[in-house]
């Protein structure tokens, strides 16, 4: 399947036009969906997320919270993951990533509906702090979603590459790709056809607490995440006694 540039994707998402700009690998702007203004942030060119980039995305999100209360946010994901440079570790890049994740969470708390779309690549840490923080996460069919490539995985785990490759053909846990993340519940839908209509529908969808574990169970991709979390939550307690606080998750 052909890769699409952010521009092609944006043109298809927003047929009525948009005001999204790229500055380097950073994307930001606004557009209209069904007559409703939305804010767009994201990255392109398989962006490496260094401390500056994480802070830039965080700035854009905080600006929306301050200046456009309640406006939905679309995160366009194309990232190679965190910068692997010494200088970024010196600066505490994990803190910048955590800050970005907290900003997305804060936007959620302020009532912003947050949707992410993986239109190209989503690798590990860059994805966790942004796209995976959204209420709903979507992917184009050709999206490449993974932790790291099989070669590096083999090097770190000291398991033969051939063996990992063979296993990854049958195991959704090891193999990259949108379909596997769908099965495991981390991707809500894979969009094909009229992606503008899909986005409009996504923005109308009601959202609640993190549903990924239960979706992973329904779809047969992750059997234990949900049940184990529930067991820990209720272990040794009587489920029939109402909790003192309202329930979540």
């Amino acid at each position, binding site marked *: 399947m052909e890769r699409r540039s952010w521009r092609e994707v944006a043109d298809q998402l927003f047929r009525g036009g948009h005001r999204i700009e790229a500055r380097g690998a950073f994307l930001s702007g606004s557009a209209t969906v069904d007559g409703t203004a939305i804010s767009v942030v994201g990255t392109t060119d398989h962006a490496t997320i260094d*401390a500056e980039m994480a802070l830039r995305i965080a700035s854009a999100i905080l600006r929306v919270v301050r200046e456009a209360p309640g406006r939905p946010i679309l995160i366009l994901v194309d990232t190679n993951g965190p910068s692997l*440079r010494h200088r970024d570790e010196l600066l505490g890049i994990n803190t910048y990533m955590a800050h970005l*994740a907290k900003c997305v969470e804060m936007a959620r708390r302020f009532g912003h509906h947050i949707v992410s779309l993986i239109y190209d690549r989503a690798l590990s840490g860059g994805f966790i702090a942004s796209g*995976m923080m959204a209420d709903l996460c979507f992917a184009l069919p050709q999206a490449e979603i993974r932790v790291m490539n099989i070669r590096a995985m083999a090097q770190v785990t000291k398991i033969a590459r051939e063996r990992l490759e063979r296993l990854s053909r049958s195991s959704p846990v090891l193999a990259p790709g949108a379909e596997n993340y769908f099965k495991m519940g981390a991707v809500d839908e894979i969009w094909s056809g009229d992606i503008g209509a899909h986005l409009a529908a996504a923005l109308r969808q009601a959202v609640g607490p993190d549903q*990924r574990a239960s979706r992973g169970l329904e779809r047969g991709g992750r059997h234990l*995440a949900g049940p184990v*979390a529930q*067991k820990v939550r209720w272990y040794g307690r009587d489920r029939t006694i109402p909790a003192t606080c309202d329930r979540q998750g």
Partner: protein
Amino acid sequence: MIVPRTSYVEATARRRVEAVLDHDSFWEFLPPEERVTSPHLSQLDLPVAFDDGVVVGGGTVQGRRVLLAAQEGAFMGGAVGEVHGAKLTGLFARAVDERPDAVVLLLESGGVRLHEANAGLIAVSEIIRALLAARGRGIRVLAVIGGGVGCFGGMGIVARCCDAVIMLEEGRLGMSGPEVIEMAGGVEELDSRDKALVWRTFGGKHRYLLGDCEYLVEDDVAAIRESIHQALEAASGFELEQLEAEHALLEKRLRELAHLHDAIDMWRALGLPDPDTLPMLDLARFTPIAHRARSFWKGEG
């Protein structure tokens, strides 16, 4: 009377839990007898652990009610797989129900367990979401970092999502560990065998000077318990104003330090005297000097 120190760094996760909590106060959720193990390791012919490398439960610290988790660095480097992650996520959901005085995380982890790649990545994301949702409901979350593996990858992000981080001088905190940096950029980027370089990049002292941990303590369980106690008393919260203040601080950090390439140059830029001697100082002598860095970040500019 001289009370012998109890080392935290050398202890197992279970021993750490017992030592940090008040005597006999620990109650484990899903103990090893329940045999909840990873479903993904057998296809790689790898052994499982009956707690999947993380102990979760409840107890008290100086009488204050906490929920607590401890990662076991000796099992797959404390890395997060599906079950391991779900235990942490479930603990935060429980915290929202039970409203303890804090959730305390004794972290030691290389991040996502690559043997469960995708499931591990999603699990870390679920931990972050559950942690921040709990904080949004007023639950205080504290991290303690010490131990041979350090705290890296997604768990490095988790640590910095907490209200406060307590680090041992021997602790290490970051995103990509030294071996990963060297693998990606070569030995010129970072020589992972250069211990002094690794410590001054990831170690407790540098993190404390940057403000990435609130407490820097000796390898002594009593000191950790005291820091937890202090952190329980400190002002805390997760509101927009605090996030904006953090944002300004992180902007300032880039302005002041992003052009520098070694921790020692950064400490010099913070106005610390004789920065090259700092790695050798014991905490009693280091702490007063470090306060200058803390006031640097609080100052205007």
